[in-house]
C-alpha cells in the first residue's frame, strides 16, 4: 500500500483568517475536531498526476512490475474528465498492457472498502491475478474557502493498493447504501443535471456565517454525523458476528477519518480503546475522502504491516449515503509507505 500526499500544507490557524468567526471559537473547534494541518494540491494538479507519481515510484523501485497488473480500479469523485475515465488516462500514461480490465468508480468516503470489494470480484476471474486499486480525490477544488464547516477538514491525496490472490483466511465484508439520503453530501451543480454557470458559481450566505456556491461541496454536518453514529456501530456488530469474532479479536480498526471527535464517539459506542482506532489523519493531512483508510494505515502502521500480520477491520462511510466494512487478517506487505508529491 502506498499513499501520496501533496507537499503543499496549510494550517488551520492560517485558514481561520478566511472565516468570519471569533478566533476563540475556531480554536475550541480545532481542539475537539483535531483540525491542524491539511495537504492540498496546487493549481494545475489533477487526480491522475498524484496516481501516476505513485505508480512511477513503485515501478522505479521494483516494488510492482507494470506487466503484472491485470486490473485497475480507480475510485474518485474528482476525475480528470467527464470522459474518458481516469483509469484510461493512467493506463495510457503508464503504457500498461492492453489486456487489462480498467474501470472508474464514483465513490467517496466508503470508496476504499467499495474499491476493495470490486478488486476482489475482479480477482474472481481466471485471467486476473493482480489488481491495482487507486483511491484519489482532490476535492479541495470543490470546497468553498469561505465554508468553515468543510474547508478546514478537507485534504487531497491518493493511494495505490495492490490486491492479489493468495492467503487462506476469508475476508468478511458488508456494504450498505441509502440513496434516499444522498443530498446530505452533494456537489449540486457541475454535472449534466445542473451544469455550472455564473449563477451556480455565485457564493451565497448559507447561514452560520458560511459562504458557498452550488458548484461547491455541500455537507449537512448534523445529518452526516447522525448517520455515522446510528449506522456504523451496528454494521460493525453484524460484521463481527458473521465472522464469529468480537471487537477484542481485532487488532486495528482502520476507519475513514472524518474528524477526531466523530471517531472517538464511535470508539465509545463500540467499546473500542482509542489506541486501536487511530484518528490522526484530519490533524496531519485533512480528510481526503476514500483515501483516508490507506492514509491512516500507512501513517500509523507502516512498519507493523510489513513485518507481521494483524486482524484488521476497515470501515468507510459517507457520500451516497454509503457505508461498508471489511474484516481481514492481513500484513507482511511488500510496501506500506507514504510519499510526498510536488514541492
Amino acid at each position, binding site marked *: 500500500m502506498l499513499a501520496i500526499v501533496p507537499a503543499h500544507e496549510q494550517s488551520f490557524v492560517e485558514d481561520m483568517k478566511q472565516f468570519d468567526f471569533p478566533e476563540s*471559537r475556531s480554536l*475550541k*473547534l480545532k481542539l*475537539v*475536531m483535531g483540525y491542524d494541518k491539511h495537504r492540498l494540491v496546487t493549481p494545475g494538479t489533477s487526480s491522475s498526476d498524484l496516481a501516476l507519481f505513485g505508480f512511477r515510484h513503485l515501478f522505479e523501485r521494483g516494488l510492482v512490475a507494470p506487466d503484472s497488473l491485470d486490473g485497475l480500479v480507480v475510485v474518485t469523485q474528482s476525475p480528470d474528465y467527464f470522459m474518458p475515465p481516469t483509469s484510461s488516462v493512467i493506463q495510457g500514461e503508464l503504457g500498461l498492457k492492453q489486456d487489462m480490465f480498467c474501470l472508474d468508480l464514483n465513490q467517496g468516503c466508503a470508496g476504499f472498502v467499495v474499491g476493495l470489494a470490486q478488486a476482489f470480484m475482479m480477482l474472481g476471474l481466471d485471467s486476473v491475478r493482480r489488481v491495482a486499486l487507486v483511491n484519489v480525490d482532490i476535492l479541495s477544488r470543490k470546497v468553498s474557502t469561505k465554508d*468553515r*464547516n468543510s474547508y478546514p477538514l478537507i485534504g487531497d491525496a491518493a493511494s495505490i493498493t495492490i490486491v492479489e490472490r493468495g492467503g487462506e483466511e476469508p475476508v468478511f465484508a458488508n456494504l450498505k447504501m441509502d440513496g434516499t439520503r444522498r443530498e446530505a453530501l452533494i456537489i449540486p451543480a457541475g454535472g449534466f443535471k445542473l451544469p455550472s454557470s455564473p449563477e451556480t458559481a455565485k457564493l451565497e450566505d448559507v*447561514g*452560520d456565517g458560511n459562504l458557498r456556491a452550488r458548484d461547491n461541496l455541500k455537507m449537512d*454536518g*448534523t445529518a452526516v*454525523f*447522525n448517520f*455515522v*453514529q*446510528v449506522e456504523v456501530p451496528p454494521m460493525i456488530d453484524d460484521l463481527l458476528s458473521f465472522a464469529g469474532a468480537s471487537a477484542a479479536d481485532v487488532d486495528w480498526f482502520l476507519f475513514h477519518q472524518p474528524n477526531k*471527535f*466523530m471517531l472517538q*464517539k*464511535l470508539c*465509545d*459506542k463500540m467499546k473500542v480503546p482509542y489506541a486501536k482506532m487511530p484518528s490522526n489523519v484530519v490533524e496531519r493531512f485533512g480528510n481526503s475522502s476514500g483515501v483516508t483508510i490507506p492514509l491512516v494505515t500507512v501513517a500509523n502502521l507502516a512498519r507493523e504491516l510489513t513485518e507481521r500480520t494483524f486482524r484488521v477491520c476497515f470501515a468507510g462511510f459517507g457520500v451516497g449515503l454509503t457505508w461498508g466494512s471489511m474484516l481481514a487478517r492481513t500484513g507482511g506487505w511488500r510496501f506500506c509507505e507514504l510519499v510526498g508529491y510536488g514541492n
Partner: protein
Amino acid sequence: MEVRLDRIVEILKDIRPEFDFRASTDFMADGLLDSFDMVTLVSALDKAFAISIDGTEIVPENFQNLAAIGKLLRKYGVNT
C-alpha cells in the same frame, strides 16, 4: 451527580460568552449555537461530568435549551 444549572450556563458561556442562555428557549433557532458549537458543547459536557454522551444523541433537539440539556444529562446520571 448533582450539578447546578449555573454550571451548564457557565459551560455554554465559555463557548459563546456574548449570549444570555437563560433568555432563550431555542438556542439553534435564536442563533446562540450552531452545529459546530453543539459538538464543542458535547465535548465540554463529557469532560466536565466524566461522561460520554452517545453519538446518536448529538442532535439539535437535545441541545435546544437548558431544559433539554438537563434532560439529556439526567440520562447519564447528572441531575441539575
